[in-house]
Each structure stands twice: as C-alpha cells, then as structure tokens.
C-alpha cells in the first residue's frame, strides 16, 4: 500500500530504486554491484554524456562509431566462436 503510494508519488523513490543491501559487512561487493547495475542500465553513460554539451556533429560521429564497433564486435565474436568450436568434424584440421 505505502509502496504503491511511494511509487506513484516519485518515479525514483530512494531506498527502493538503485538500492543494494550490504551482506556480511561486505561494503565493497555491494558498491561494486551498484556500480555494475548502473553501468549496465546505461545510467553512468548518460550521466557522463550530459556533463557537457555535445554538438550534433559529435553525436553523429559517436553514434556512427558505436554502430561500426557493434558490427565489428559481432563479426569478431562469430569468428572466435567458429575457431573455438568444440565438436569439429575433423578434430585436427590440417594435421592429417
């Protein structure tokens, strides 16, 4: 009940959103986990991007660069998987 009210009144209610409990007094792990979650959600990236104004040409360049990188990474990942695949027809190609 109170939770729904809090969620309705505030989209980012503190101590519910972006919160991690500390287990066994291990503060390091907890803060790392928070950082990891923020990084994965793109919150830190957005924070860093909006510190200074990014001119439109810079945005275009950044986006294009990200696209190129994504394509390259995908291809490279596939190549690596292909080379590292386990169940080959000929287990030692080129060695017969």
């Amino acid at each position: 009940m109170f939770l729904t009210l809090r969620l309705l009144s505030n989209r980012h209610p503190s101590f519910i959103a972006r919160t991690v409990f500390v287990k066994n007094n291990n503060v390091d792990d907890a803060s790392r986990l928070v950082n990891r979650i923020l990084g994965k959600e793109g919150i830190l990236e957005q924070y860093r991007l909006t510190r200074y104004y990014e001119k439109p040409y810079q945005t275009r360049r950044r986006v294009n660069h990200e696209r190129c990188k994504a394509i390259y990474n995908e291809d490279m990942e596939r190549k690596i998987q292909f080379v590292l695949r386990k169940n080959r027809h000929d287990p030692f190609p080129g060695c017969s």
Partner: protein
Amino acid sequence: MLSAIRNTLRVPVTSVARLFQTSVPQASDKFDHKRIPQDDEGVQGEKIVDLDSVIKTKQNLFPTLESDNLLFDGTLYKDLPICNIRVTHNNTIFTMTDAGGTVKAIRSCGMEGFKNTKKGTNIAAQTTAIALATKVLDRGVKTVRVRVKGLGPGRLAAIKGLQMGGLQIVSITDNTHVSWNPPRARKARRL
C-alpha cells in the same frame, strides 16, 4: 599510344583497390578520448562484476515490499538515519540526516583541512568519512543507510571510510540525478 594511356590509368586504379580494405573498420584514435572513464571515478566493477552469477548466488540483496519493515539493530529500515554523500570531481560532502531528512551533521573534505585539488582525492574522502563516523558514533548513531550522489574519486572511498570509522552500513543507494532529456549542458571543455 592508346594502350600506353590505358596502362597509366590502370596502375593507380589497382593501387587504390589494394588500399581499400573491407575487413576491419578502422576506429579513429582521435574520437573517444573524453568518453573513456578516468582512472578513479569510484565506479570500480562497472564492467567486471558478473551480474547473473551474483543474483543467482545471493538472495535478499534488493529491497522488496517488506524491506521497509525489516529490523536492523532494533530499528525499522525506514527509520534508520541516512548518510548522504555528494561526490564530485572536486569535493566530497557528507550529510548525516535522520529518517525524516533533518540534518544532524555535515562534514566535507574542505572542512577537514584538505584544500584545492586535494579535496577531490579518495584519501580526503576516506579521512573525512572516518571523522564523520567517529563524530556520529559519539551521538549514538551506529547503523546507517548510505545514499550516494554523483561520480568522483571519493565515491568508493567514502563508503569504505564510513565502515572503517565504525558505522554499520545496511544498504547502499545511488541517487545520482540523470536525465534523458536534459536542458542544454555547459559547453564542452577544451583540452
């Protein structure tokens, strides 16, 4: 005559064809030197920690419907005092408040005797945190929840320092204000 012209034309064409690479898109080195996070922004583990395994192994890491009414050191979670930490590149400011938000103690790296660029270091943040923790422990506050705002070298060190000072930290919350349609930011730095 014609064949001689053809030959002269051909040579540059072939050499161009050799220069043209289709395999690897070249990333320009100039581009993202500003985008790379600096050495210490207090965001260790941003890209390392394996989230899936962590979530699988441990339970009760994240707040739920009942977490407001959990007991920590004899106090309800929602009634625990809060330690707000404002982290910037140039300073770290600690504010102890009770659950309602009334300020009980303020400490910053500048107040602790660090001046100018030294304010923004992790060592400054840690010493300030220890000083605040001892000050607050005298007043009888032992268990706190931590709310961090901003990125900076003091981010991780501040939380560590609070623990080293003797405070029991129940939870860590990030409260960094991030907008996806922000007003125009200040102009870019020229390095």
